[in-house]
């Protein structure tokens, strides 16, 4: 029997096969969601402008006191007005995005990697190792994560690095749990068994076969966490446990504006809005991704 027979129809079908990788598929779904698109736009503008401001404005200008111009209203020169030390609030907020987003991305990336490693090990090997790891995770989950971060910062001292570390550690359990459950569900699928029967090493099975198939829920969780982390960082700085003044972090700007809140509400409204919109943008993107990655849609 000739081999061509099996594939008899194919020449006619060539046009109808839509070449679309899964990434493209997910993105096309994501871009149909208006809120997610708005979130992506807002976050991109934030990222781009916060990077740009580093080149356009000297950092000294952002932190230098200029008491003659203090507490000015909104004007063409000072878009958001000036604060109690006469600094340009707009510059400070945009520069603050740099620090907030940096803290957000770095700590989420850190907790994804650390939590991912712990969770994958627990999920893949199972048994006693899994039980031990999970009990530790359970203990940490029992402590509210903001409180936990406060504890770490009070022990290690304030500053951006310690703040980062604190938030990162506090978020590990969430990621460990998600990684563990997705690894466990993928680990028993037939294609993993196929990889084992093909002679793949454990390392290769985990990194090439299991993890790429766990990415969906993890990406969603990471995006949603990004908002939460930015919020935590701002609140820690607000209560004086995070970034220290005069660094223009959003929480710090809020604290500084608090004094003048009654007479000059813009000093808290603008940084508050910045935090709110950024967190909202992250949540919209996260929700959009969750819908786009939902296997039921395919």
């Amino acid at each position, binding site marked *: 029997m000739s081999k061509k*027979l099996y594939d*008899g*129809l194919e020449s006619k079908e060539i046009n109808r096969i839509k070449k679309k990788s899964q990434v493209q598929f997910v993105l096309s779904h994501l871009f149909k969601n208006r809120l997610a698109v708005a979130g992506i736009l807002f976050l991109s503008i934030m990222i781009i402008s916060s990077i740009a401001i580093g080149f356009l404005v000297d950092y000294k200008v952002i932190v230098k006191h200029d008491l003659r111009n203090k507490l000015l209203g909104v004007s063409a020169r000072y878009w958001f007005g000036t604060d109690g030390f006469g600094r340009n609030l707009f510059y400070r907020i945009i520069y603050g995005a740099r620090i907030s987003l940096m803290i957000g991305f770095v700590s989420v990336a850190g907790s994804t990697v650390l939590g991912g490693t712990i969770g994958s090990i627990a999920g893949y090997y199972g048994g006693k190792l899994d039980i031990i790891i999970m009990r530790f995770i359970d203990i940490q989950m029992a402590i509210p994560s903001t409180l936990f971060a406060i504890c770490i910062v009070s022990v290690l001292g304030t500053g951006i690095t310690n703040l980062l570390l604190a938030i990162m550690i506090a978020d590990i359990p969430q990621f460990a749990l998600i990684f563990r459950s997705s690894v466990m569900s993928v680990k028993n699928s037939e294609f993993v068994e196929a990889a084992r029967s093909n002679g793949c090493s454990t390392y290769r099975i985990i990194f090439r076969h299991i993890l790429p198939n766990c990415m969906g829920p993890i990406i969603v969780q990471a995006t949603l966490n990004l908002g939460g982390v930015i919020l935590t960082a701002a609140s820690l700085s607000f209560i004086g446990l995070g970034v220290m003044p005069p660094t223009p972090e959003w929480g710090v700007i809020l604290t500084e504006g608090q004094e003048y809140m009654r007479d000059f509400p813009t000093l808290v409204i603008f940084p508050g809005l910045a935090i709110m919109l950024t967190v909202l943008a992250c949540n919209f993107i996260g929700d959009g991704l969750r819908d786009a990655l939902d296997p039921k849609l395919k």
Partner: protein
Amino acid sequence: MNGNPLLEIEDLFTVYNTEIGVVKAINGISLQLREGMTLGLVGETGAGKTTTALSIMRLLPEKTGKVIKGAIKFEGKNLLDLDEFEMEKIRGKEISMIFQDPLSSLNPIMTVADQIEEVLMIHQSDKKKKSYNFLQNSQLFLRSNTKIERKTDEILELVGISSDRKREFPHQFSGGMKQRVSIAMALICNPKLIIADEPTTALDVTIQAQVIEIMEKLKQQLNTAMILITHDLGIVASICDEIAIMYAGEIIEFGTVEDIFDRNKKHHPYTQGLFDSIPRLDDDKPRLKPIRGLMPDPTDLPASCKFHPRCDFCMDICTKQNPLPLKEQMHMIRCHLYSGSKEL
């Protein structure tokens, strides 16, 4: 050839509007089913068998599925003209359905008896009282209602389940037993028509044989008409009276079992291909003769004969024109091979 037409499908077209495009699931099928007859709908995945059933039951997925043309007449009434309230009265009472997967078609948190009784309650209350009272659904009320209980016991015994087990939950039953419960549920209101969608596909062979035996027995006892949807020609041979072979949303061959299973009669090349594709216990072919190629894309069907790209007897005309049905008594074939003669 006894009985009046119970169900008549006339030139039915059903589509699904999906992201990839308009899926043409059913492309003009016409059928007649008489009282007490069993019709086998045979075809492969994507042939439109289940869509036909869902169109009859008006259970097509709301947002995507749509009947765009045709009529489905049940006892002379066009089901497509009825509103949802009238349709609810027909579903379960006049026409009921048995699904492929007994595991997911039964409610896991209701006992078997409650589920069967619920069907009865809904349709009885239609007759006796005007509105369907929520209280009637409660178990207390049901248990006191001895008449309903007796009926439930009867129907369970009929499908071979001891009535002692009726207060158990679906997960306490095995797969075959669950499918019997589904059959009992379908039968409880003495429907005139049962649509069974691959009722035995999920079962093991020995259990399948048991379920088929029960269905055969019930068919004779109750004289209910049935549409049996399956891909298994063996099952069709054992219980159907008439057979419709479907391909890409069309009925390409129709006939009595004798017509279809008589290998000396003329057949559609696809029917022939199906028979040649199945390994059989009773002969020793060194190799099977598969149909080459695959099912056509339902979003982009050829306007002419749907089977021509896979057909070994494809002629010029096959690529240009859709063949008209040719009939000899009950036997119908849609194929250009036989269109030279007026009759088969």
